[in-house]
């Protein structure tokens, strides 16, 4: 399976920028990197997706280096409502389509 590694938990304070890094050493050439956000008692929600360099939307930025073996999700000026679990998906699994969610990173934003 296409494995990813990310920190289990992070703490931050309101107004700070948060960067969550994910490693995906065996990502395939065609695969994209996708990040999801999950609030308690809800299903995951798509945040951002990219292939290389930098992608930005209204929620976050995604930085992907040239070797694509890692990626960094950047959340600018977090608020309490950004407290959630963030999952990084590093593409497909071999020749079959099995997206793999790891344990994710539990982000807690403090007042």
């Amino acid at each position: 399976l296409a494995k990813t590694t990310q920190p289990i938990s992070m703490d931050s304070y309101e107004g700070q920028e948060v960067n969550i890094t994910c490693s995906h050493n065996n990502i395939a050439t065609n695969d994209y990197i996708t990040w999801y956000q999950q609030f308690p008692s809800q299903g995951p929600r798509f945040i951002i997706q990219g292939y290389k360099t930098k992608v930005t939307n209204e929620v976050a930025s995604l930085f992907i280096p040239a070797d694509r073996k890692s990626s960094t999700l950047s959340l600018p000026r977090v608020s309490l409502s950004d407290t959630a679990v963030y999952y990084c998906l590093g593409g497909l699994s071999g020749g079959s389509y099995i997206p793999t969610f790891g344990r994710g990173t539990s982000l807690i934003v403090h007042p």
Partner: protein
Amino acid sequence: NAGVTQTPKFRILKIGQSMTLQCTQDMNHNYMYWYRQDPGMGLKLIYYSVGAGITDKGEVPNGYNVSRSTTEDFPLRLELAAPSQTSVYFCASSPQEARGLHETQYFGPGTRLLVL
């Protein structure tokens, strides 16, 4: 659009009972998925489908069955419920328009299942 809907929201089963978790999407997506999420853990793929009439196993298919007779519906069947199947079950769908692109998945609200 309602997106992905799941029923029931919560269910308690006795060991050995059976039930079907319903999942419906109204976005005309080809791909649909069933995941389970145990407390404090990530999501594990149970089964997925790339279109009506086609299903395939994910990471943890044992104890479950699925069918996909229409594009909209993807029910998950538990035949002999066991305590190990206590979990939250999420259904998701994606358009999967292009190979190689990990398409955005749209998730339902989940079904919380307790097997006693």
